[in-house]
């Protein structure tokens, strides 16, 4: 009798309902709210307002600028580290990666507080350099998230590829450009995804270093405080669209590389 009652497939039902109700439905609601006005009529007013208003458009551009700078700095710092850990002097010491990703497990607000104290000691008054401090704190916060995927993709890379390159007469720079870099693109893409989006939205970092300029996340925060659900939803919907495009592009890029 028990066979009839218990079916392995049914175990997924609670999770499927949960995903439908609390992951998919909230996003549909946000998209609906983003494109309706306060009375509930479908309208593009919020959407057009966002792109017509120099203040909100400026916020979008400012967050893109911050995200690009933070991502590039993280990539430039993380790549050599990941390479050294995966293929260099530390290649046999796997526990060493742990040392680099360990800070991830400490609450980020406490880590930023710690860095703030150091920056205050160096700069005197944090409020004097809001932009630079934002960049430093974000790089500090997100660096481990860039190191990990880069390490994972570099460590899987077959050493004989590099040796073959060297045997065929390639110098170090040629090996890097023609072998290492192309083969580590999936790792670079997943690292960039893990840093770029938080850099556009993590407005707490800006708050903590007294940077009063808004990024996309701050807009949601401020609409939330003023109970403006429609505009808050619109920003969420715009971010969702960007995430969607980003994911599709990244997937296509990795698939092409693998093919």
């Amino acid at each position, binding site marked *: 009798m*028990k*066979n009839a009652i*218990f079916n*392995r*497939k049914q*175990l*997924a*039902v*609670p*999770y*499927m309902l*949960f*995903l*439908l109700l*609390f*992951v998919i*439905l*909230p996003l549909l*609601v*946000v998209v609906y709210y983003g494109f309706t006005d306060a009375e509930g009529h479908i309208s593009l007013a919020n959407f057009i307002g966002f792109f017509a208003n120099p203040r909100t458009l400026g916020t979008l551009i400012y967050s893109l600028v911050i995200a690009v700078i933070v991502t590039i700095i993280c990539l430039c710092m993380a790549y*050599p*580290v990941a*390479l*050294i850990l995966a293929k*260099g*002097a*530390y290649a046999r010491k796997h526990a060493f990666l*742990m*040392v680099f990703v*360990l*800070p991830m*497990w*400490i*609450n980020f*607000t*406490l*880590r930023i*507080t*710690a860095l*703030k*104290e*150091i920056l*205050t*000691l160096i700069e005197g008054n944090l409020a004097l350099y809001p932009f630079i401090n934002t960049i430093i704190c974000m790089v*500090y916060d997100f660096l481990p998230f860039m190191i990990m995927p880069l390490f994972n993709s570099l460590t899987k890379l077959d050493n004989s590829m590099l040796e073959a390159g060297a045997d065929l007469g390639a110098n170090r720079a040629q090996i890097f450009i023609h072998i290492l870099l192309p083969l580590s693109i999936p790792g670079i893409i997943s690292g960039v*995804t893990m840093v770029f*989006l938080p850099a556009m*939205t993590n*407005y*707490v970092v800006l*708050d*903590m270093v007294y940077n009063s300029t808004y990024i996309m996340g701050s807009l*949601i*925060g401020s609409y939330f405080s003023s109970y403006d659900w429609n505009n*808050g*939803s619109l920003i969420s919907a715009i*971010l*969702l669209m960007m*995430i969607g495009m980003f*994911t599709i592009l990244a997937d296509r890029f990795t698939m092409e590389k693998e093919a």
Partner: protein
Amino acid sequence: MKKSIQHLVVFLVLAFLYMPILILTFYSFTSSTMIGSVRGFSLDNYVTLFTEPALLSMMGGTVVLALGVGLLSTILGSLGAIGSFYSKRGTRLFVELANDIPIANADVVTGFSVCILTIVIFGIDKSTFVPLVVAQTALCAPFVYLSVMPRLKSMDPALFEAALDLGATPVKAMIKVVIPHIFPGILSGFMTAITLSLDDYFIATYTKPATFDTISTYVVNATRGSQTQIKTALWALSAIIFAIVVIAVVIMNLNKVDSEEERI
């Protein structure tokens, strides 16, 4: 790259990552109110941390919330992974796709969207903790799912059938055969869920009861205020969390070395 340059790069990046937290740990044992000014040794910060009611309740609340969300996410995510693993391709594809959404999404958007649904549309009171727990679970459960799935894929499908042939009921086969095999995945999913909940700021801000604070929301509010006693007590908290994380990582690695030796 030359060996010496490699060591230098590793050293510099480690210094950048660890210097702030190490310096803060050092100063948490002094009576200084800002770093750079050396005063005598003192445990005052630790005394404040464990006697001030606001600090105690925010630490306790954060830990209880993380454990609750961790447990709920682990049950939902693990069952979801087992169920979808044995389901038809279409069902599985749907679950995997939906599962990826909170992982790719910005926490701000996850928090805000669940806030709109549960609080604005369903009218659930924030002070019931339901929106907060639901929203954090929506973030954490997908990570549990992702950490259980590879263990299921690596399992010999004949094991479950063999248990049935030997007379076990499907429930018993599930508990005695499948769960033990995927247990490492369940455990690491649980740990990930807990860390995510402990680290979360954005979801908590949008969905938490007004009088409840997690470590993140408390710290952010404290940096806006000017109470130096609270500020330096938080240094002590950083030092303690740092120590716990280091000990946990060391133990995890020792276990890993042990199990690798056993395999040989």
